[in-house]
């Protein structure tokens, strides 16, 4: 199970990758997708929605459970992964790549300090 070093993680099992010091790409971890099992639906936010760090921005639905998605950082949603509407299983297949969920325009980079490193996240889940 992979936990890339260049990402930051939440205790709620989301990851964020910062691009150009301004854009955050958000998804859920390999561990989260494997615990959820077959993902059948992702409820995505509207573009332009303001999100706050560690507050829900959408939901993810597997066959037996549904969970909230928490935003790793505060900011504005500027893009959602439209491919998930027809192929939510991309999250199972490629959680850090094709299975990304939203992109946000980061409002406060210092919030990164509240997130976990790959090392800390692995400890959290006991890997």
């Amino acid at each position, binding site marked *: 199970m992979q936990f890339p070093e260049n990402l930051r993680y939440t205790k709620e099992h989301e990851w964020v990758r910062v691009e150009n010091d301004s854009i955050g790409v958000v998804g859920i971890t390999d561990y989260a997708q494997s615990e959820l099992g077959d993902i059948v639906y992702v409820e995505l936010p509207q573009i332009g929605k303001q999100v706050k760090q560690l507050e829900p921005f959408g939901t993810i639905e597997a066959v037996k*459970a549904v969970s909230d998605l928490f935003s790793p950082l505060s900011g504005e949603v500027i893009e959602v992964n439209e491919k998930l509407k027809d192929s939510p299983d991309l999250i199972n297949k490629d959680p850090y790549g094709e299975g990304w969920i939203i992109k946000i325009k980061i409002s406060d980079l210092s919030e990164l300090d509240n997130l976990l490193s790959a090392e800390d996240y692995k400890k959290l889940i006991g890997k």
Partner: protein
Amino acid sequence: MGFVPNTEEDKKEMLKAIGVSSFEELISDIPAEIRLKEELNLPEPLSEYEVLKELQDISEKNLDLNHAICFLGGGAYDHFIPSAVFTIISRSEFYTAYTPYQAEVSQGTLQSIYEYQTMICRLTGMDAANASMYDGGSALAEAVLLSIGYTERKEVVVAGPVNPNYLKVVKTYTHPRKAQIKLTKFDAGVCDIEDLKQKVTDNTACVIVQQPNFFGNIEDVFEIERITHLHGALFIVAIDPISLGLLVPPGEYGADIVVGEGQPLGIPLSFGGPYLGIFAVKEFLIRKMPGRLSGITIDRNGERGFTLTLQTREQHIRREKATSNICTNQGLMMLAATVYMALMGKQGLKEVATLCLQKSHYLAEKISQIDGFKLKYKQPFFKEFVVETPLPVSLIKDKLQAKKILPGIDISKFAGYGDGLLIAVTEKRTKKEMDIFVDELKNLAG
């Protein structure tokens, strides 16, 4: 309910198990001053025959519809129920009022739910229907909750006269969400479109219209839909299922949610319940829909099977974040509606609707020819209409009820709905019955 005897031996055994010496000791915590000191003052016991006779005498004080001519409507209607409906729903395999719990064991029940959902979709022109709700009022209230959750807006606009009892339920359900309910004017008996344009804003979660409306009139649903969607609100249409034998299905004019009272579909009036809440949505709302949903699948042997589906919407999994706290359906009533629709078919339903339309227009014509009586509104109507009367409606009701005619509903009892007599005519009313009604009204007026 079975008879549970309570013998002296039983009492002794129970008191012993509890660990008290007497019944008096068991209830010693109840203050003496509020306890009855003497024995209950009851008459002597009666024989089985005497009890039956007495109950029969009491029940005959009710004016039932086998012995009265009924023009009551307002959401519950005296439609004909084929005998096959009761015969089928009372089969022991089906006979329960409850939603299936160990659901997949009850394949027959799940299949009947699936058939019901399919029929409701075809009737309303919608993509998905749930396994039913309690009644028309609670279905409407759930639709409003869904709209508030989906749009994250708080305003609810009621376009035209909607059943006031449904609106009471809506107010009760939405009170904790702090919904603001705005009513449009309906001076001409239908929604005032100019007023609606003022009241629908970008803060509107949903617009509710009843088609036909509470007065029986036909609303301009096409224009109401346009105004609703211009502001990104959801369009809720409350229907009378019988009317869809003739009227355009709401799915075809842009309804996002269709609700309705299913009682006209083979369910007896029975003092106001149990009834059936119809609930259907367009596909984009399917995960927000309250209630149970039966789906079709194949098992590991490739055989067709039925299963509760999309359960992750529901309160037992989604907990406090579910759209609704409903995890049940109106099982037996839903089955009655399914059997009724299957018996009627598309053609039968159309015939019932056509008879309602023709007969109600015959009666409206006859009544408006009586001196002092006239139709209150100049609108097209389906099976109900409001009449202005030369005498107080309450007096007409009292006089005719004594002659075993139920003339309709006194709408003055609903604040804001004006005065008049709301008369409903189903396919069951014969020309003779209607002519008797007209003659009695003439006598009163003369």
